[in-house]
């Protein structure tokens, strides 16, 4: 199988280049990550992140034939050759397929990604109805892979000012949690021409999420709540 992979090692290379590889797949190689590891066995200098190899840890986000995805759950049989692999777009490249995610996590941290409830907790659990709990489905499952934010044009242009779809999805995860008391602070935190309102509902994010989550919808719901509290 033929591959063309983005290579860049700041210690050696003046600028990035594409390197071609041809690899013989073996019995049992099904996912893109399997093939990349065969390449890495031939050329140990190829850099990428990986861990769970089952789509739950969010390590191996990359741009695969022009579309962001997780290599470990991208079937090889669906890929057109040569498979073109690039790092996630819009973030600084550290080396090869490894990007600097600091900006992405900074935005995640900026939405206060934790439950806020200053009432002393009861002796047992805080009660929550199954229906209220259901509101968190489609939100809490995010693996922070950054596939969405790095396919969002608004995030490319303003990664320091626009929160981006992944972190906005998490912002809504806490707004939607009946146990959280900080909804109005959370909305204040986003009420700004950039932080939330740079989203122009282009839908790239929802289209690309490898976990099938829909940040656009969550962003819509935050905007709704903002409108609601204005009237």
């Amino acid at each position, binding site marked *: 199988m033929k591959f063309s992979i983005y290579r860049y*090692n*700041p*210690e*050696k290379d003046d600028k990035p280049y594409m390197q071609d590889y041809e690899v013989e797949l073996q*019995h*049992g190689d*099904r*996912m893109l990550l399997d093939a990349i590891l065969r390449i*890495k*066995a031939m*050329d*140990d*200098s190829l*850099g*990428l*992140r*990986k*861990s*769970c*190899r*089952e789509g*739950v*840890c*969010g*390590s191996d986000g990359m741009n695969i034939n022009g579309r962001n995805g997780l290599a470990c*759950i991208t*079937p090889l*049989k669906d890929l057109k050759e040569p498979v073109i692999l690039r790092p996630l777009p819009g973030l600084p490249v*550290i*080396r*090869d397929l*490894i990007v600097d*995610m600091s900006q992405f*996590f900074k935005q995640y*941290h900026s939405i*206060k*990604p*934790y*439950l806020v*409830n200053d009432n002393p*907790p009861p*002796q*047992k*659990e*805080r*009660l*929550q*109805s*199954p229906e*209220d*709990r259901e509101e*968190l489905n489609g939100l*809490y*499952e995010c*693996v*922070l892979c950054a596939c969405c934010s790095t396919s969002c044009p608004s995030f490319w242009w303003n990664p320091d000012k626009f929160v981006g779809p992944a972190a906005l999805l998490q912002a809504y995860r*806490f707004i939607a*949690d009946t*146990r*959280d008391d900080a909804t109005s602070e959370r909305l204040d935190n986003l009420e700004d021409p950039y932080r939330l309102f740079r989203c122009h509902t282009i839908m790239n994010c929802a289209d690309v999420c490898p976990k099938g989550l829909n940040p656009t919808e969550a962003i819509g719901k935050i905007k709704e709540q903002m409108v609601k509290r204005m009237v």
Partner: protein
Amino acid sequence: MALSRQIFDTVIVGGGGSGLRAALQLAEAGHHVAVFSKVFPTRSHTVAAQGGIGASLGNMQEDHWLWHMYDTIKGSDYLGDQDAIEFMCRKAAEVVYELEHFGMPFDRNPDGTIYQRPFGGHSQNFGERPVQRACAAADRTGHAMLHTLYQRNVRAHCQFFVEWMALDLIRDYEGVVVGIVALEMETGQVVIFQAKSTILATGGAGRIYHSSTNAFINTGDGLGMAARAGVPLEDMEFWQFHPTGVAGAGVLITEGVRGEGGILLNSEGERFMERYAPTMKDLASRDVVSRGIDQEIKEGRGVGPEKDHVLLKLDHLGAEVINKRLPGIREIALKFANVDPIREPIPVVPTCHYQMGGIPTNYYGQVVAPRGALGTSEVIPGLYAIGECACVSVHGANRLGTNSLLDLLVFGKSAGDHLCEWLKTNPQHRDLPHDAADRSMERLSRLDGAQSGENITEVAQAMRRTVQHHAGVFRTGTLLREGVEKIREVAKRARNTAIKDKSRVFNTARIEALELENLVIVAEATLVAAEARTESRGAQAREDFKDRDDKNWLKHSLWYMEGSRLDYKPVNLQPLTVESFEPKVRVY
């Protein structure tokens, strides 16, 4: 060469469930703590846990921590230490409620309480009937828990060193642990972290096996660090296997498939479980089924070009049943085995899942090791270990499902609390020995200097095949003795590896070479301890010694890296407040 140095009260190596729980306790108390992780914390393998967290909340039926304690001891095949087990089961409800208060999105019952589901081995009233004890967030409990703990640490302003790999412990001349040496992956720089105390929370080492449900990063680094520093490893012969992981991929296929009527076949198309378990057949207990599959493979009736797996057939159930009852399994089979179970069988193999052994500790998380010939255990000052890398021992010879996530919470918190007290009476940092970083620097300079040598991928493959074949589900003296010989060969090769890539920036080849050194240590400990234990108990099933032998083997093994020597210490059968549970024959 002078290395730069940073100073903390406590360094925690590991940002999985156990490391994050301990970090929270310390950070919220205002201590200066640093958490190291090879990956961004939410990518730690706790994220993959599915089923639930065990705690006798009694939300579904009446339940009691004492029943949980009994189930855990019986599950451990009586090798678990009863003081630690009582401690864990008593604390379970408290740590689960806390996790809920932190924001954990547990599933809920109509009355608003946490939903609990049934799990293997959990019972009411000392084995009378099943009880729903596993607190769950869908089938993503580990993901929900790990993210919640990370989030709470963000709130507590805990300091993280993300994508740093700890290389070695630093022990001073009196044996006190005074910090670690660590490597920053992005820059390749090596830094000394001086600390009053160090917690190892590096997770399991399931990657010593060819077929494993574990992540690539589960390489037993904490075990390697401890062993190199002279700390013994406890009960390393005990590894839990799940009968049906997808062959080659390791992703789990639930027991529910066989519950619906799926059957296991060998290369001759024979339903071989009828020979091993005439009554229960494919639905016998996990260890029995795993042993059956392994025996078929060893006798040459495995399937595939390497004859290394068997088939799980369920097409006879029909499309309707499969789509209705097993849609998730169909998705996994399509994704990871490239087969549609409606038409074809799924290739499966017993899959290494969990490491019961580890770094010996007490229930405060303090690392303890025998000192002197009498074998009395003494605390190694400054060193703690928690989570899957530790052996406290609550899981003994066989872990009960849901007890690991619980172990992370209980002992993570307990170590944090103990350290908060300890730090009060130990306000000073001790001096670093002048050879603090020597061991790490030697390892690195050997790798940097090696122009030719063994290929990492090949040595790793040889190690995994050796452990899989010789210390699998089912063991014999001959197999184990051969395995010990082979793994020593592999260990020699691992000391002679070479990588082509010598650059400093995010050199993943170097990381993998360092990880391999740790894996090989764990592999050798496993084979040596298993060879010596001439009995069958829990996960150690010996064909040449089929029975449990309480007279000679009701004891923990301790493996020392130096000389690959074994020692033993007694099982603690004395709980904290209740009466001891005496060893009995184990029937379910």
